[in-house]
């Protein structure tokens, strides 16, 4: 076990845990944002640089600070490590810069994007970004490519997190898409036009943090905040799929089916394409009840839950932090619930 101090809060976690996951165990507003890291996908992370934090003491043995900011999603904890996130001005400045970089070539077409309302980039920009841009140049665009009847690829919205590439590598027998090109001309593609089609290909939609990969069967049907998520399951015959899903209802109709996600938007159980695209009748499913609505979701409509610090993992909260937590719960989303 390693004991670390994160933003003044001490927490004890197993060796080999990343700083980000240690912070997630504490929970609350101190958790660094993650645009590319995805716990279930091995090898993901380190690319978007949104989760950079300052390590002001490397470990108990070697308490020197790390010279550069480190990506918290891939840096493992050391006993005695001291990490600064929201309390460090440099970290917050750099994060603003990362938002700006991710947005300069993003089309900002949220009004017509199916991901709007559950988009990590929207949340990230809302929480850390500026409301203006310094970018005057023309934004980057790509030739449209068709990757099949089920999944829509919008390359202009892509932030190149590589998650969909890892999904294809780790979930499906054969990967037919990848990142082509270099620098800001890199794009997700199949090189020779090809259909991304196998039993688990639909999961690329769930892992995509933005609207670059969306569900064609749900396209333009409804804004997500007008739909009601309901947990359901069925006996799925597909190997490795156990049929635990979330159905998104509008009235009596199931408009789309997704995997269940935790509060950080991570899928815990992958679902197959049959469950996702073909079973859109209530009769196909055994309903379990309303799904938990994420704090950042627009569906919460002014009933934002404040993220709660998990008291069990915290060893000793300094008195000042306790007072601070009581007076100011860890995160207020842009003052909306004031």
């Amino acid at each position: 076990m390693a004991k670390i101090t994160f933003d003044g809060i001490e927490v004890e976690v197993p060796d080999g845990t990343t700083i980000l996951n240690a912070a997630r165990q504490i929970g609350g507003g101190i958790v660094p944002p993650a645009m590319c890291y995805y716990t279930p996908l091995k090898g993901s992370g380190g690319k978007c640089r949104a989760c950079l934090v300052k390590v002001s003491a490397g470990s108990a043995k070697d308490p020197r600070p790390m010279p550069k900011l480190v990506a918290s999603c891939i840096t493992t904890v050391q006993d005695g490590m001291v990490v600064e996130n929201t309390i460090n001005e440099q970290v917050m400045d750099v994060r603003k810069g990362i938002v700006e970089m991710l947005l300069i070539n993003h089309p900002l077409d949220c009004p017509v994007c199916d991901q709007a309302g559950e988009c990590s980039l929207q949340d990230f920009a809302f929480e850390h970004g500026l409301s203006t841009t310094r970018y005057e140049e023309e934004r980057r665009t790509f030739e449209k490519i068709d990757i099949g009847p089920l999944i829509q690829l919008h390359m202009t919205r892509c932030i190149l997190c590589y998650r969909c590439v890892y999904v294809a590598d780790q979930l499906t027998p054969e990967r037919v898409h990848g990142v082509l090109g270099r620098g800001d001309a890199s794009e997700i593609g199949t090189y020779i036009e090809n259909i991304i089609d196998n039993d688990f290909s639909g999961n690329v939609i769930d892992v995509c943090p933005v609207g670059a990969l969306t569900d064609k069967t749900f396209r333009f049907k409804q804004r997500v905040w007008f739909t009601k998520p309901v947990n359901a399951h069925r006996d799925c015959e597909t190997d490795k799929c156990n049929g635990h899903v979330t159905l998104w209802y509008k009235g009596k109709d199931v408009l789309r089916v997704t995997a269940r996600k935790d509060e950080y938007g991570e899928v815990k159980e992958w679902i197959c394409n049959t469950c996702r695209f073909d079973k859109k009748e209530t009769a196909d499913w055994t309903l379990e009840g309303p799904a938990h609505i994420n704090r950042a979701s627009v569906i919460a409509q002014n009933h934002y839950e404040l993220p709660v610090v998990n008291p069990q993992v915290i060893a000793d909260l300094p008195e000042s932090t306790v007072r601070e937590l009581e007076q100011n719960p860890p995160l207020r989303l842009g003052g909306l619930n004031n």
Partner: protein
Amino acid sequence: MGRKLLTEHINVEGINTFEVYRKHGGYRSVEKALKTMTPDEVTEEVKKSGLRGRGGAGFPAGMKWGFLAKPEGVPRYLVCNADESEPGTFKDRQLMTKLPHLLIEGMITGSYALGARTSYIYIRGELLYVLRILEKAIAEAYAAGFLGENILGSGYSLDLHVHPGAGAYICGEETALLESLEGKRGNPRNKPPFPAVQGLYARPTVVNNVETIAAVPVIVNEGGDEYAKIGIGKSTGTKLISACGHLNKPGIYEIELGLPVEEFIYSDEYCGGIWKGRELKAVVAGGSSVPILPKELILKTAAGENRLMSYESLSDGGFVTGTMLGSGGFIAMDETTCIVKNTWNYSRFYHHESCGQCSPCREGTGWLEKVLHRLEHGHGSMHDIDLIVSVAKQIEGNTICPLGEAAAWPVAAAVRHFRHEFEWHVNHPKEATAPGAVYRGAAVLA
């Protein structure tokens, strides 16, 4: 005339063949190391020599070798980074073209020291003809028994392979190079783990520059202590400098570290002064990614001392009034050079070569290039000058690999020292964009 350790015989007819090379004392270090020294003793000599990485970062080579993890029963690798593509740097190409056996000799001795049974030379894809030269030389070394099974009856075996890249600058970054060598897309890896622990095929690996490896035979032959006597302070030995730009005699020079920059530029033994009798304006001393310095600061440090060609002297003054020795790509610019255009040109290169993996570099390099293009073509505003400094700062230090810094430093330094020239482009767009126009005001020194 300084001593030539690497290039002494470079102009000997037929030195690229095994026989001639052997006649001139080639492969002595292999004999000496394999027959009379243990691998650790070879490493110890390299440590004593104070040899520093010649690829740009200047990290002590012996220390790097010392970091190599050596778990039992796990193969280790030595990889030679011959993906030389930094603008202004062309020393390794010459070394490999003329003296392929020197590199091979260094690879054998180095691999022996590190306990590698298979080693690789990763060469830049554009240098296909050099690849053929190396392959021919390797075949000769195999035939002579210096490669393959049981070298010189010592019981040590080594296989050496040359692998061409596909022409990406980023594959000169050591972890991207390893990815590429493994047959994957050349994206830099997140560190840690460092290659010394998990490198090629997740095995302990040392990646060294061509020139670093070529210095190993000299160190083994002469002894680390002898090698350390050459040079100045912690900059030991000799360094190949590829001098280019507005010089009377551009070319590749082997210098003893510690040579005054002024002597290097103006003496007839080296570059012979600035061409066409013009004045020197600025110098980029170590390949395009290091900060540019105006004439006043490259010849003398801020404290008024003579600037020397050494790791320490060139970085004297940090990034405010100093620069870096880098890879030894010495680019001299005369008074007719437009710094704005030059900076734009560099940015264009880094924009083109960014791998696109992490967001600050992927988006930032393109942004820098576009704003610099605007400034150069007379459409910029004063705000743009601050903008590029700010964007460079947003990239620097926040990326996976050093390409981010390489893209940010030249821009930040150009604005730092030549801000007036940028402002002149904004305030007098017509004059600035006229053919042959150039700003001749003074540079900012501090």
